[in-house]
């Protein structure tokens, strides 16, 4: 009897929590729409008021992009500490490539050198070229950068596997899947054991360093300093277990329509974090 009552209360409690979650996300979207509205109204009213300036708008958009790039770059410099490597961890069912591409481009614009994109179904990895295309497109849209402007970085990139990475605006972007997590540690272990089997190595010489150097591929990509998680699931869902030893985890509710303000507030939070490294 009591058990039934408890279960009933539990169900109500969880229903309430779910309701709260839904309401929050609904308000977020409403807020976002409202912001869009305000912008749209402003865009409509300003040219109306200044009627004759209307036709100039198109011409100035390139300048606006340049400005944006400078502003975002300055934003990045205003932070005390910037992550070198950001992991974008998407734990949502629906993936929006444009929003992800936006995030990646923002990362590049503030001066982050390495960006990893992960989902636990391996969709980004499978649709890698689509993601990279979208990033290039957003890069042009938002920053007005020609990929032709940075030919050197592309050429320098021949050591990397091009199908997994795009090096542009001096950032390496990589799509990761669960296969880069535990299975990659297993592969490294297998390699070491094989060396032992062939008497090239002794078991006693294996330590954290040997394993770490095997797990760090030729690119010498540093461990992610910041893991930016999107979605309601509070878990890493298999994201690079070896490499996230010291990563800071910061969550945002969703990557859909994420705003630059939200993104920047995360960077600010990161820059305020202090790491004592065991001390």
């Amino acid at each position, binding site marked *: 009897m009591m058990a039934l009552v408890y279960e009933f209360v539990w*169900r109500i409690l969880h229903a309430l929590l779910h309701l709260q979650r839904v309401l929050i996300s609904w308000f977020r979207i409403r807020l976002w729409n409202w912001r869009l509205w305000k912008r749209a109204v402003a865009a409509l009213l300003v040219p109306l008021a200044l009627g004759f300036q209307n036709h100039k708008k198109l011409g100035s958009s390139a300048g606006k992009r340049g400005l944006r790039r400078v502003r975002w770059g300055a934003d990045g410099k205003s932070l005390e500490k910037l992550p070198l490597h950001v992991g974008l961890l998407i734990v949502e069912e629906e993936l929006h490539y444009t929003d992800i591409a936006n995030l990646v481009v923002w990362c590049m614009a503030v001066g982050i050198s390495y960006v990893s994109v992960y989902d636990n179904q391996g969709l980004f990895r499978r649709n890698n070229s689509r993601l990279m295309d979208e990033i290039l497109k957003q890069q042009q849209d938002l920053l007005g950068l020609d990929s032709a402007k940075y030919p050197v970085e592309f050429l320098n990139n021949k050591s990397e596997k091009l199908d997994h990475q795009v090096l542009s605006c001096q950032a390496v972007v990589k799509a990761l899947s669960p296969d880069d997590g535990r299975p990659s540690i297993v592969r490294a272990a297998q390699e070491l054991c094989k060396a032992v089997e062939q008497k090239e190595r002794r078991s006693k010489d294996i330590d954290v360093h040997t394993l770490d150097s095997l797990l760090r591929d030729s690119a010498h990509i540093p461990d992610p300093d910041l893991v930016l998680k999107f979605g309601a699931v509070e878990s890493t869902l298999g994201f690079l277990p*070896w490499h996230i030893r010291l990563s800071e*985890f910061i969550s945002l509710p969703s990557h859909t329509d994420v705003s630059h303000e939200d993104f920047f507030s995360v960077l600010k939070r990161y820059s305020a974090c202090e790491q004592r490294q065991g001390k």
Partner: protein
Amino acid sequence: MSWIREGELSLIERLSANILKAGPMPKHVAFIMDGNRRYARKRHVERQEGHTQGFDKLAETLRWCLNLDIREVTVYAFSIENFKRSKEEVDGLMELARQKFARLLEEQENLEKHGVRIRVLGDLALLPLDLQQVIAKAVVSTRGHNKCFLNVCFAYTSRHEIANAVREMAWGVEQGLIKSSDVSEFLLSECLYSSSSPDPDLLIRTSGEVRLSDFLLWQTSYSCLVFQSVLWPEYSFWNLCEAILQYQLNYLSLQKARDLHREQQTLQQLEADRRCVAELLMHSGNGKGNATDKQSRQEHLLTYAAHREERVRGFLEALQQRRDSYFTDLTSQSAKPDLNFKRSRCLKERPVTPRRRKSPDARKGCQINLNLSSNPKKLHPRSQPKQRRPRMSPPKTTMPRRTRSNTFNRASVQRQAQKAEAPADTK
């Protein structure tokens, strides 16, 4: 202060506990007990006092966990990185550990009442010898208990643990117990210090830090992570309830992700087996028609998988024995001369790598860890699934998740093999 605080919950706490228990509860919770020093600063007390209060809070939390039917708790007590702290603080922490483990030996009956088994995970060789011996005694004395499990990570980092597991597997290869191709996700998990526990369902870190700090990186890949801003000595029952509520909200998505991962793991194992079989067939030279037809290929695959499992089981038994025997050496009274002998022998066998710790005991170089599940006959039937034997039997619903997931029984091999084999046949 004892290890498990006596006392019952208040009425309202009991009520809330019962409501929470109506939903899915975590079976294994891991804690990063952060914030002792900040607490001491905040309260203007000695740093050591902060650590002591932190320990008292652990005793209280264990009580709550018992009340909430959480049967396994893992705590991060001391990281290898913590050796970097000032000598004074490290010595203070070692002294605290010495006291508390000695205390643990005194309160046998209390632990027996609750059936608490203590395991210590980490590279104990980095600790002072006397502390190692106290820990060993505490662990051995609770060996027979099997109702609740408390895993204390001491001189631990996750990378160290994984590297150690790889070293153990390499040892197995050296001894000819396994082949390098037998190395798998399952085997690596079984070589970790935490091999006898299921992966934690919930990881809680206090004091507002939002990183794992090299704690259970492998094991928490699919766990619910909850970061709370309260300092550890101020942790309350309600904080714990909040974390559990978080876990329950995430339960379904996590379960789904785990299932997906399990599926991938099985497929990877099958793929590895098929590769090995193909290689064997190539080498044995009978690449004639009979080797390529579906049925014989599948037969080969099944025998190979069975042999692999046999090898792996033998290796894991040997590993367990090695771990246990090192450990028993440490506890036995006559351990000292024996240990010295062992130390010199190990020195010969294994040169000190320059990276290893400053502690003179590190020179022993032998990796020990205290996952004792030796002497299976002594154990209560409830702990049976923790042993390796039942893994071959078909999955039962009562088996813990991990054992079930890794059961590689023939039927499932066959089913998977047929699935995977199908496209090959259309060629």
